[in-house]
């Protein structure tokens, strides 16, 4: 009896927070995803690698509700879910930081963080609802302080920021409302070298808060610095996956190129 109880409780603890089963995505004649599956556990950082065009971004957009899958199911906290827009996934606590960041350069940091979920206040006895700029600025400042992100002022327009600062704002935006899962598409790709470390530390910080993170990256340094597990997509399908301690850099680089052999051998073969 007791054994069954522990069995089942262990099972619950090991249940994935977010799961994708047999996802297909077609764009007209193009099959971008073919039977892709994923399990993301609470508080883990999962790295996703793959060559350009492997379907990484498309898969993340399916997870965040920007694309709906042509086939397959998404399961969140044990229940099947259907997202018709990012609004639905955000309501459940799934946030995405897009590759192109999706910030409005003409608006200030605070407005970008709360875009789509603006704090409001009622005036004229509830007749009129206004955007509550003051509260937005205060909340944004507190949130950035919390994440140890430093900016001159939250009233600065985003177009005035450096690439790393923009990335930080995009991450702050994704965590502004009790996120459970944050998906990041190549968060370090466009950064100056000295800014990469800061962004990676920010990602580690999310993990410490118990947030699950999916991060796409081409940089092995990123993957081996922040991830617990890594999976590879190749030509739109699952190719390989491993816990970080069971994988080597050259192995993972091999996966990107569609090879499960040790990269050393591949290189060796080439030299021959």
């Amino acid at each position, binding site marked *: 009896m007791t054994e069954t109880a522990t069995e089942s409780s262990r099972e619950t603890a090991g249940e994935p927070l977010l799961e994708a089963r047999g996802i297909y995505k077609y764009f007209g004649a193009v099959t971008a995803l073919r039977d892709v599956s994923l399990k993301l556990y609470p508080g883990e950082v999962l790295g996703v690698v793959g060559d350009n065009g492997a379907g990484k971004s498309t898969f993340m957009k399916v997870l965040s509700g920007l694309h709906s899958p042509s086939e397959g199911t998404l399961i969140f906290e044990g229940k099947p879910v259907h997202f018709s827009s990012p609004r639905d996934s955000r309501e459940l606590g799934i946030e995405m930081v897009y590759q192109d960041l999706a910030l409005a350069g003409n*608006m200030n940091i605070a407005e970008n963080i709360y*875009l789509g979920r603006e704090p*409001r206040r009622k005036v004229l006895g509830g007749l009129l*609802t206004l*955007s509550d700029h003051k509260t937005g600025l205060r909340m944004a400042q507190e949130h950035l302080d919390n994440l140890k992100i430093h900016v001159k002022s939250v009233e600065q327009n985003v177009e005035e920021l450096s690439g790393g600062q923009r990335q930080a704002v995009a991450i702050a935006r994704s965590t502004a409302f009790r996120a459970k899962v944050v998906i990041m598409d190549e968060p370090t790709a466009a950064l100056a070298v000295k800014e990469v470390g800061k962004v990676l530390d920010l990602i580690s910080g999310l993990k410490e808060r118990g947030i699950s993170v999916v991060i796409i990256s081409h940089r092995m340094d990123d993957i081996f610095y922040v991830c617990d597990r890594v999976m590879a997509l190749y030509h739109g399908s699952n190719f390989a996956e491993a816990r970080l301690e069971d994988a080597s850099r050259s192995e993972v680089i091999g996966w990107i190129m569609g090879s499960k052999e040790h990269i050393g051998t591949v290189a060796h073969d080439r030299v021959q």
Partner: protein
Amino acid sequence: MTASSDLENGGLPEQADTDGIRTRLLPFMDRFGILLVIVLIGLVMWFLQPDVFFTWRNITNIFKQTAANGMLSIGMFIVILTAGIDLSVGSVLALGMMTLAVANAGGMPWPIVLVLSPLMGIAAGFINGVGITKLRMPHPFIMTLGMLFIARGLANLISGGVPYSGLPDPVRFLGSARIYLGELDGTRLNLPVVFLATIVVYFVFWILLEHTVFGRRIYAIGGNPQAARVSGINVDRMLVAVYTICGFMAGIAGLVMAGRTNSGFPNAGQGMELEAIAAVIIGGASFFGGRGHVLGIFGGVIIMGLIKNGLNLNDVSSFWQQILIGAIIILAVFIDVLRRDLGTRH
């Protein structure tokens, strides 16, 4: 002081200067620079026509003449904020005006006649918005160019291409009524109702754009539509609303012009879409969307009005007016280009 401290400061001024320009002067000029331009133009006019220009009568005239353009321009502004364009407003103005005049001639009661022009505007704007989003037109230019012809054609069709004149007072109220304020040095001071209405409309748009969630999202769509979309904002629905509001303002402009001229004529508003675009651009909005302020647009409208008025007073032909306004549009955008260079220099 000592030579050394002079030297120390000697290295700084340039840096401090450009910083001061960037952080203080530029934002200030962004918002209020246009008022300075207006004062300057006003002073020149006053200098050229000291007896006429700065009279109560002439100033209120300017407001009366620019009111319709003011209504069109603020609607055009929110469309341009979304990086769109509405070429149909001049024709929609005419359609609203003709519907109103024809309905009146047909014996409709004035409360219905009064709302017909704004209603036609709403309908045309709504169709523009739905066309742009649902028919997935490659650019709003196409849909609204189509509407430019359709609305003009309808205006002619329902009126048989001839003007109708004579409207009841309540319908004329917005465009022609005046409020008597009192007497000053023997002149009767009358305030055109349309001037007050313009102020109220611009104030409402200021609240809308600066202080409502809807307004801030209009700026966000102009800044980066993709960002708005992934934030869960229903961009298509917002665009339909924006074009509908623009159409509504064209309908209001139709009502204003019908009131002022006490008539409806089917070729009214021809070319006014371009004047509205000009006022918006002179007022500091960007064609790429997301930039500009209500106060600037108001300034743009006033500048257009001042120049026309000034040139009329000085007996300059309307051909020269066109040339001057064209030059000012180019100059205004060029100043904006220079300003942006300065603003983004690091």
